[in-house]
C-alpha cells in the first residue's frame, strides 16, 4: 500500500460539503458525515434534517447552552436556525423514504459496484446490531453520498464487487467520497471522478476491489 498521505476524516467531510447546494434539505448520518456541517461553502444555507423530527438544525450547542429536548440523531444537543420546524418521527421518515431530502450522507463499511451499501453491522460482532434510520434513508434518498475510508484498518478494500457485510440497502448509493477518491455509481458501474492529491487513478484502483472506470483525465480533489 503506497505510503502517501490520504485525506483526513475532516477533509473527506470538507470535500463532501462541496456537494451541497444553497437551500438543500440534507440528512447527515453517524461518523464522518456528522463532520460535514462544519465545512459548508460560504454563503449557502442548508437545512439539516434529523430523523427525530427536526428540520433546520444549526450548530451544536455550546457548553451551558444545551437543551436536552433539542438533540440530533446522535443525542448531541444542537441549536436551530430561523425557519426550523418540528414534526413527529413518522413524518421525519416520510421525508427520508419519500425522496423529499435533496441529499443524504451516510457512513459505510462497504459499498459494492452496484451501489449496495453495508453500514449497520460488522459480521461476527456481538449483539443484534443497530439499524436506526439508515435503511429508510438509503431506500429513499434522491442523492445518497457515502463517506468512508477507502480501506479498512487492515488495508482491505471497502469498495467491493459484492458486499460481504450485512446490507443496509441495495443499489442505493450515488456517490462515494473516501480519503482517496470521489466515485460515482452509474448504471454501467463505478466511475472515478476525482483522486486524492498525489494519487494516480491506477494507485486508487489498486486499493479498490471493484473496477473503476476512468473517463478522460481525472482531476485531484480540490478542497479550496
Amino acid at each position, binding site marked *: 500500500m503506497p505510503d502517501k498521505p490520504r485525506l483526513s476524516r475532516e477533509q473527506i467531510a470538507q470535500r463532501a460539503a462541496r456537494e451541497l447546494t444553497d*437551500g438543500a434539505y440534507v440528512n447527515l448520518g453517524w461518523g464522518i458525515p456528522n463532520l460535514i456541517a462544519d465545512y459548508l461553502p460560504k454563503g449557502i444555507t442548508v437545512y439539516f434534517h434529523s430523523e427525530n423530527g427536526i428540520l433546520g438544525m444549526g450548530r451544536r450547542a455550546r457548553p451551558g447552552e444545551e437543551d436536552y429536548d433539542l438533540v440530533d440523531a446522535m443525542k448531541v444537543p444542537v441549536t436551530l436556525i430561523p425557519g*426550523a420546524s418540528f414534526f413527529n418521527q413518522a413524518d421525519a421518515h416520510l421525508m427520508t*423514504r*419519500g425522496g423529499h431530502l435533496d441529499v443524504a450522507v451516510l457512513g459505510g463499511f462497504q459499498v459494492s459496484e452496484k451501489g449496495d451499501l453495508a453500514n449497520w453491522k460488522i459480521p461476527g460482532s456481538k449483539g443484534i446490531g443497530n439499524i436506526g434510520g439508515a435503511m429508510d434513508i438509503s*431506500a429513499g434518498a434522491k442523492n445518497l453520498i457515502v463517506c468512508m475510508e477507502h480501506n479498512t484498518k487492515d488495508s482491505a478494500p471497502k469498495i467491493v464487487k459484492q458486499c460481504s457485510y450485512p446490507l443496509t440497502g441495495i443499489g442505493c448509493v450515488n456517490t462515494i467520497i473516501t480519503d482517496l477518491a470521489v466515485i460515482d455509481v452509474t448504471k454501467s458501474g463505478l466511475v472515478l471522478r476525482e483522486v486524492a492529491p498525489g494519487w494516480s487513478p491506477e494507485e486508487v484502483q489498486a486499493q479498490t476491489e471493484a473496477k473503476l472506470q476512468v473517463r478522460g483525465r481525472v482531476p485531484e480533489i480540490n478542497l479550496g
Partner: protein
Amino acid sequence: MKQKISPSLDAVVADIPDGARIMFGGFGGAGFPNNLIQALSRKGIKEITAISNNCGTREGELGIMFKNGQVRHVIAAFPGPHSNYFQECYAKGEVTCELVPQGILCERMRAAAAGLLGFYTTVGVGTEVANGKEERVIDGKRCILEKPIHADFALIKAEKADELGNLTYRLAARNFNPIMAMAASTTIVEVDEIVPVGSIEPENVITPAIFVHRIVQAKGLRYAG
C-alpha cells in the same frame, strides 16, 4: 436562501403543462386554492387529471375547470351533487372519474408522500370500490390492495407562509392541504399572508418548508356556494 416566492398567480402556474396530474386542496368551501385555480383555468390548460375531494360547486372551486372543459380525468371521493359542470361533462363522457373513499384518498396520497408502494385496507371490501383490485385475507380480515396516488403538482391554500415555505392553516381550512403538499412533486401554495422567516413557532408549523416549492400571496376569493 432559495427564492420560493412568486410575484403573481399567473407566473406561479405558468409552467404547468397540459395533461398534468394536479392535486387540489379544500373541503366544504374551506381551504380551496381558488385564486390558483382561476389562474390555471385562465391560462387555458387542457386535459388535466384532477385529484380532489370534490368537483367544485357551480363555477366555484374546481367548477370553472369543468365548465371550460379543461379536465380529462378526476380522482375524487365526493364529486358532489352541486358540481353541475362536472355532472354534465361526466354524462357526456368528456370526463372520466375514479371514485375513492375519502380516507383512502388521503392514505393513497400519503403513501405516495411516504414512499410506500401500496397498503391493505378493509375499506371498500365487497363494494364497487373493490372492483379490479387485489383482494386477500390478512389476520382473518378481507382486505384490498390500494396503490399510491402521485401528482406532478399540488395547488393548496394555507393561511400563512414564512419566506421559506413553512405553513399554518386556519381552522378547518387545513383539511386535505397538508397531505397534498407532501404528495406532489411540486407544491404551490396560495396564502393570505407571507411572514418573515422565524415568525412561526417551530412547534406550530403544520407543513414544514421542505414540502413547499412555490409561494404566492393572494387575497382570498371565496366560493362558499
